[in-house]
């Protein structure tokens, strides 16, 4: 019960159920084909095959924190549903902690935690603590372990004053924190988060991210999250997987994603007065608004020499550097994978990659 070990080491490692190389999640050419029926006449129906997930392979090692992103309908949720055993794959091999999710859904359930961002699993009319007591008994969590985990979550997620409050009275951010705690009471080895920060305010988002970072660092819990908020990825994940049209189009570090997307950073300079567009080596002006000018330069290069060059020949008053919006980067990357081999240097006009530019439907 109280073995003093971190939960993850105690369970999976000792049983030797981990695949080769410490991989906790293994997908080998996994696919999911839905047949979609459409009514075409009074009684006639047309059946069409849709590949929601098309031969995806990857492994996630124990203790990794991975972002799983892509446009709506790309196959993210379908993948998560297969990983949690909700959906049965149409083909390929899938293992989580050595378990085939679709065959042993209930056994797997004890070892994974799932948070569906938009669907709470808490009991609406009851105090928050009641939902936790139900989980305590439903998962048969040993008393000592339950108390220890609950205390930790309550402290780190600042739930102390909320435990006796009916869930219906909690704010969205409080409820999300409550849901995350609920998914962790049974010491899962993997935590799946589906849009964990959706609809939260800045402070709640920060608190959730901080907690996840700590969970991953201290307990070694493997975390797989889908999100539309790319700051989640930037701040949490060392690895990103991008899925589009059911295929894995990128798998690697976030920095690499910038390179693949050939992204640019933006240098915003405020000059003393209005001048014609700045002419400087290594950057191009993309926008002028009175004395303020926007210059795009490759994300991989340092801004310092560029600033020095501009300051040398223009009346520079103030400046700021904008990091590329990753959503725009992904859009660009998806665009480049769909069109064969875009010539290097021939930049498509995508406007300024800034917070204002948003990809439709992403």
């Amino acid at each position, binding site marked *: 019960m109280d073995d003093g070990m971190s939960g993850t080491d105690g369970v999976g490692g000792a049983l030797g159920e981990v695949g080769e190389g410490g991989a906790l999640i293994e997908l080998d050419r996994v696919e999911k084909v*839905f*047949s979609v029926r459409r009514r075409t006449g009074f009684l006639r129906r047309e059946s069409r095959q849709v590949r929601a997930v098309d031969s995806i392979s990857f492994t996630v090692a124990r203790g990794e924190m991975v972002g799983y992103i892509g446009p709506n309908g790309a196959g993210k949720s*379908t993948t998560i*549903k297969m990983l*949690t*055993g*909700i*959906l*049965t794959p*149409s083909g390929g091999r899938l293992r989580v902690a050595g378990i085939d999710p*679709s065959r*042993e*859904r*209930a*056994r797997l*359930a*004890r070892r*994974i935690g*799932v948070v*569906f961002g938009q*669907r709470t*699993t808490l*009991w*609406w*009319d*009851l105090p928050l603590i*009641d939902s936790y007591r*139900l989980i305590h*008994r*439903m*998962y048969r969590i040993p008393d000592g372990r339950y108390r220890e985990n609950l205390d930790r979550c309550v402290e780190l997620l600042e739930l102390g004053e909320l435990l006796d409050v*009916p869930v219906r009275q909690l704010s969205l951010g409080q409820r999300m924190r409550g849901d995350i705690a609920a998914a962790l009471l049974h010491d899962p080895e993997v935590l799946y988060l589906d849009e964990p920060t959706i609809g939260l305010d800045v402070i709640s988002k920060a608190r959730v991210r901080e907690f996840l970072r700590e969970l991953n660092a201290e307990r070694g819990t493997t975390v797989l999250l889908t999100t539309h908020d790319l700051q989640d990825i930037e701040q949490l994940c060392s690895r990103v997987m991008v899925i589009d049209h059911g295929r894995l189009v990128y798998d690697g570090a976030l920095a690499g994603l910038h390179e693949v997307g050939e992204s640019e950073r933006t240098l915003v300079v405020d000059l003393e007065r209005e001048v014609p567009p700045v002419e400087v080596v290594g950057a191009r002006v993309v926008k002028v608004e009175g004395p303020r000018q926007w210059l795009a330069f490759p994300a991989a290069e340092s801004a310092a020499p560029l600033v020095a060059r501009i300051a040398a020949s223009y009346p520079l008053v103030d400046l700021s550097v904008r990091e590329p919006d990753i959503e725009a980067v992904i859009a660009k990357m998806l665009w480049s994978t769909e069109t064969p081999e875009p010539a290097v240097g021939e930049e498509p006009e995508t406007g300024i990659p800034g917070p204002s530019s948003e990809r439709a439907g992403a």
Partner: protein
Amino acid sequence: MAEPGRFAEGVRAYRLIAGMWIRSTMAYRASFVMTTFGNFAATALDFVAILLMFSRVDALGGWSLPEVAFLYGLSGMAFGLADLAIGSMDRLGSRVRDGTLDTLLVRPVPVLAQVAADRFGLRRLGRVVQGALVLGYALASLDIDWTPARVLLMPWMVVSGCGIFCAVFVAGAAFQFVAQDASEVQNAFTYGGTTLLQYPPTVFAQDLVRGVTFVLPLAFVNWLPASYVLGRPLPLELPGWVAFAGPAVAVACCALAGAAWRTGLRAYRSTGS
């Protein structure tokens, strides 16, 4: 894997979840009292309709008022208990539609138990109580020749009747995996079925009675065993021992419903919609 263990696990989960719903209901005590009373009153109106009929006639299909009350009470109790236990299963379709079924699928307890306990409502006791009262009235007014077999048949038919209705609920829910807006179809068989059984079989066409005996065996809830207890010939000239077949029929129905449930769940897990 371990089947008996799974069943016990399901019952345990059912109790845990039903307990949560009872506590949720008690968060609104006044509402609970009112809906329980409303449930009682609404079902009592059914019987008032029968009383009104008997103010005009002395017998319905050859059955007297206490005899019809006997059928009514038995049907009401058997259905009421099933409705109390798993009556909310007709919400499965909406759970499939809004995606909340997925949250049940990631828990380590049987999905059927979770869906059966969903929205467990003690207010449904209203129907059971009302059925029991009418049955009490019938037993007090009837002069039944109580043999041991007839005494045995009383709890025997309530329990197996409840089992048969439970099977209908589960099968109906399983169908909603495929057709998510089919809860009205289910209601036709459950609420419709119990209303049918409140009237003597002799007022219905023979074909309907055959269907309710051999196809969807609701006749085993009360028509057949009640006829035996009242010393009447069984409908369709069936032999007397058929009156005792209720439990076997209930078990068979539950097995079929269980198979339908598993098929439905498998279909859901392969289509996810």
